């Protein structure tokens, strides 16, 4: 009982397990769209990320211009966890940021943020 618990206390291990769970069904269940497609839907959805309110993204319709356009993300964020941190709590870098702290204020679930990160990271 003790051993497996110890293993999953490490954050990266949790990520691996979560990752496995979320990827496996996509391969087996044909109807389920890819993680990136789900991430795009979540990013564009007004009731979810609503990232288009402030960012120009991909082929998104009528984007706002309060935040920087999101592209070339791998270059800007060599470390994916930095990108995730910006989305999880934008106020850490900039206490007055316009960008809502999606994770800290539980606007999105951890899984939803993961999917958005996958999508945004491709841009």
């Amino acid at each position: 009982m003790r051993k497996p618990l110890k293993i999953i206390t490490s954050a990266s291990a949790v990520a691996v397990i979560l990752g496995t769970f979320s990827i496996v069904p996509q391969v087996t269940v044909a109807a389920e769209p890819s993680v990136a497609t789900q991430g795009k839907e979540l990013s564009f959805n007004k009731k979810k990320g609503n990232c288009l309110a402030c960012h120009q993204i991909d082929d998104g319709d009528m984007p706002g211009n309060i935040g920087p356009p999101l592209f070339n993300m791998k270059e800007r964020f060599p470390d994916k966890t930095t990108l995730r941190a910006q989305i999880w709590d934008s106020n850490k870098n900039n206490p007055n940021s316009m960008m809502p702290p999606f994770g800290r204020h539980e606007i999105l679930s951890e899984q939803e943020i993961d999917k958005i990160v996958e999508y945004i990271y491709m841009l």
Partner: protein
Amino acid sequence: MKKLIAAAAALAVVAGSPLVAQASPEEDLKDFQAHYMKRFPGVSVDDYTNGVYAVNADARSSWESIEDFPPYDEALIQGEQFFNEKFANGKTYADCFPNGGIGIRQNYPYFDSESGDIKTLEGEINECREANGETPLKWKVGKLAAISAYMASTSDGKKLNVEVPDDPRALEWYNKGKEFYYSKRGQLNLSCANCHVDNPGMRIRADTLSPALGHPSHFPVWRMKWAAKDNSNDLGGLGTMHRRFGGCNKQVRAKPFPAQSDEYKALEYFLTYMSNGVPVSASRTRK
């Protein structure tokens, strides 16, 4: 790139709080208006009564053509009729206000040293009714908004002129409103200032954000959105300033405060003082 954005973010913090915590209202007012003059050179203080259209040239011409045949005309006519109706005791609103209620909008809200309270125009309209044995009207919409809009229309062109007198209680109201304006709130964690001080002229999705300067100069306002929601009478598009405050609180998923609550009275007091010098333009249309 990262460096550039970090610098921009640092700038945003500074720009986001142009008002120093302990500054006097006079110093605040100077800094507040200077912030907009710098951001929109060429836009005169007078023009800020036009809200978002002062800083959005693209949308301005279609707005001006709407204003040629204002959808709120009928509401103003009815507001004047309501204003002149006699109470059961034979008195009218004119008996409750200085100068018979004509041309006084620019002096509201004000600090009343007797009660230590902030008096808004809507607040005094209902006070007047109650003092004359009438039931108070519903806040935010309908008859009260129409009377307020008519009274404001008699102040068209007069510059907002609100005082923070040398009284610690007045300063307390002022500071309460100021703190409210700059505090992040709601699940989306946004302050009023984030949108209307830090980002006026920028687009949030398809909406261009208006400058805070001048906000209180054209209320009650006629909104197409409100008119579409309530077309049961000729007053459906009208709403008071506190109705709009509530809408902007809800927008960030914060709980709105009631109209005429201390929170919104303080907010109106601060915001109007910041807009001193902007001319009143009554009941303009907005999206």
